[in-house]
């Protein structure tokens, strides 16, 4: 303590000696709707880099010719464990990452210097089924974070000072938030996780300036609303699931945001007879009013925990000679869906399996409605095996679209099947698990028909022809959010050997790889500061990647892999 005056004196001396311009904070360019709709190549302003959710950077200084010389520019340890999944989001040289526990870290994007760090106090007794956070939203001069205990918090982008906090929901009832908010038209939109705790999902919008709630649209309709009759009479809709935990995409021309929704609850489908709208669906919501303007349900009466929370990727393309404003989604079911978005409707165009699916026996050619094989459908008192398994052909890790190659990239898992034991009747208790299968059965659910088959597949699809252009196959499963760039590259981690890799976007050849401190399950991004292009990603294994690894370790103990935990922001540039 007696050293404090000396320190203070030194600090004051240093402050006085520092030229004023060096201590001036870097100017922060306000984030507008116009900028979000047409982001400058140098910045990565939102979860997927643009409203269409492409995961695409138009920067090309790092490219297929020089990516082999990619080297670490700087790294920053978060000091935390569990899943580090958020993309480094960059605006005007400011970088924002989030961590498990809903912390926000602002960094100088060029140097990695910490500018500020916000640590919300999370209740000590909240259970953390998915300890992660998937990023911030930027709007105006603020940064928005959806916290795991269901608060939406606005922070000053330059200082980290709290502008406002709004309670979105009651965490004690099993609601929690992990998604990056969507910012558009003066509103900040979020939704709750809790498909395993019997939430009633929704998308809710809050005024970006004040935090006041503008609207809340449930993904499970209540009495008197269209779709309510797809639920059994009674209160089942109140605990029907349809969680919302991945950021929606947005079409500024129509003002519609496209959100994916989670599985219905509880899991045994016979306990909630009917289609169960709008679970395992995509819904188009008018951002102004919250009104649902269209939807497509991928799996009516889902029985396999096939959350379809990944928002569709919005691509204007040509299909069978016809221009289509498409909404493309690599489903948890293992089907690749091409839908058409209009101002007031969502139309089915076509779909096909991108991995082995033995449940769906056919699709209605007009509506895309699937028919199911009853022998592959588990339920109350009835176990069943099915492909793909609970974690699907693709879980939440986002796909990417590259307008130069015209290819749609999917981080897929093939022949990763599942088996559930006989389901049991389950009673809803607020805040408790609401699943309906013995829990050790869920743990032991992963099945691989042939242990020597490959599982993970980085796939590239030509949407115009519906043909697979290339696939890079892995012996292990793949949990890899994707980035693609105008440098003809695809970046992906997601394997249990902790590698972060660059692939040739045209042919899938591995061009570069980097052994990260932990497994890479973070969403990668790219940006430019002072003329230098960077590739950024968080390393930090955890959550479902760890869970799936645990399931593989259980069925193939001779190949047991333990991936170390710990979060690090990694930023790369081309070495001289």
């Amino acid at each position: 303590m007696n050293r404090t005056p000396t320190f203070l004196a030194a600090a004051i001396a240093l402050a006085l000696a520092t030229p004023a311009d060096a201590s001036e904070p870097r100017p922060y360019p306000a984030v507008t709707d116009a900028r979000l709709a047409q982001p400058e190549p140098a910045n990565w302003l939102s979860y997927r880099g643009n409203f269409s959710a492409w995961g695409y950077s138009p920067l090309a200084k790092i490219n297929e010719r020089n990516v082999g010389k990619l080297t670490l520019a700087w790294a920053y340890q978060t000091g935390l464990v569990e899943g580090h999944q958020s993309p480094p989001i960059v605006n005007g040289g400011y970088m924002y990452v989030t961590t498990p526990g809903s912390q926000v870290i602002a960094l100088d994007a060029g140097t990695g210097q910490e500018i500020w760090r916000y640590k919300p106090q999370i209740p000590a007794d909240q259970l953390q089924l998915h300890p992660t956070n998937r990023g911030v939203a930027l709007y105006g001069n603020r940064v928005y974070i959806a916290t795991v205990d269901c608060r939406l918090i606005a922070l000053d982008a330059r200082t980290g000072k709290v502008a406002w906090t709004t309670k979105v929901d009651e965490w004690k009832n099993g609601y929690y938030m992990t998604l990056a908010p969507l910012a558009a038209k003066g509103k900040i939109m979020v939704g709750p996780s809790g498909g395993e705790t019997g939430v009633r999902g929704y998308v809710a919008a809050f005024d970006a300036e004040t935090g006041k709630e503008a609207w809340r649209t449930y993904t499970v309709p209540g009495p008197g609303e269209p779709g309510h009759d797809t639920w059994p009479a009674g209160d089942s809709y109140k605990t029907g699931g349809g969680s919302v935990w991945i950021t929606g995409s947005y079409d500024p021309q129509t003002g519609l945001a496209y959100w994916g929704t989670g599985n219905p609850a509880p899991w045994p489908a016979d306990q909630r007879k009917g289609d169960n709208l709008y679970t395992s669906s995509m819904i188009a919501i008018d951002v102004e009013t919250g009104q649902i303007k269209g939807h497509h349900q991928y799996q009516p009466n889902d029985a396999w925990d096939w959350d379809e929370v990944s928002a569709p990727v919005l691509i204007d393309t040509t299909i069978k000679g016809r221009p289509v404003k498409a909404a493309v989604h690599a489903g948890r079911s293992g089907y690749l869906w091409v839908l058409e978005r209009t101002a007031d409707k969502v139309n089915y165009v076509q779909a096909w399996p991108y991995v082995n699916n033995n449940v769906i026996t056919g699709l209605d050619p007009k509506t895309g409605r699937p028919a199911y094989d009853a022998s592959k459908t588990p339920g109350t008192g009835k176990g069943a095996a099915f492909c793909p398994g609970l974690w699907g052909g693709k879980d939440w890790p986002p796909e990417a679209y590259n307008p130069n190659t015209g290819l749609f990239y999917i981080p897929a898992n093939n022949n990763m099947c599942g088996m559930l034991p006989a389901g049991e009747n389950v009673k809803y208790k607020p805040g408790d698990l609401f699943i309906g299968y013995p829990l050790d059965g869920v743990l032991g659910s992963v099945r691989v028909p042939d242990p020597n088959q490959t599982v993970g597949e980085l796939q590239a699809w030509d949407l115009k022809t519906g043909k697979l252009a290339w696939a890079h196959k892995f012996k292990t499963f793949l949990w890899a959010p994707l980035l693609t760039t105008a440098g003809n590259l695809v970046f992906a981690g997601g394997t249990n050997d902790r590698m972060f890799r660059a692939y040739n976007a045209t042919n899938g050849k591995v061009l570069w790889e980097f052994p990260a401190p932990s497994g890479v399950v973070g969403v990668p991004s790219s940006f430019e500061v002072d003329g230098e292009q960077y590739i950024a990603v968080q390393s930090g294994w955890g959550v479902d990647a760890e869970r799936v690894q645990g399931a593989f370790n259980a069925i193939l103990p001779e190949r047991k892999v333990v991936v170390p935990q710990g979060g690090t922001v990694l930023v790369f540039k081309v070495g001289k």
Partner: protein
Amino acid sequence: MKHIAIHPVERAPAAGCGCGADPQRRKALKAAAGMALLAGAGLRPAQAAEDGPRTGDWLVLADDEAKKPIGAADVKLGEKPLIAYPFDPAAKAVRDGSRMNRILLVRLDPGSLDGATQPRAAEGVVAYSAFCTHMGCDVNAWVAAEKVLLCFCHFSKFDPSQEAAVTGGPAPRPLPALPIKLEDGKFVVAGAFSAPPGKAA
């Protein structure tokens, strides 16, 4: 400021937890407990719902509105654990203000219990904190083949016959043990948790 439950760690029975072997740590914990009591005195009633179990408490099922004390016959061999809250018989109040107060009860073969677990058990029934030491989920599943407790969230496994030692998954430490005894056919808390419940930072 809302008081956050701090569970005083009492001196364990002679044959009990390893924490008794470290006088420095015990002293620190006692000091912390004392401070918690002082800090709490002016802020809350002596017995808040957030408080953890106290010696003499009964145990009631977490979802039992009738608040019937759990008895020896309610906990059956080979069945998944029961999830309970402590019940203050004097105030007739369930201590359910914090999920960290959740307690699991499971019946084991008395001959399978190790030397530290045996004195805390009552006729083969053992009690532990049900708040997973990893991420705070309920430890409420049972893997019969391995005779271990399972946390669904991240698949941590604990051996209840061996002081809830971690046998699998990411949990960093065992579940805190709670000594219990049988009085008039019902389970009664016989001491404090062997360590404070809580999740990894």
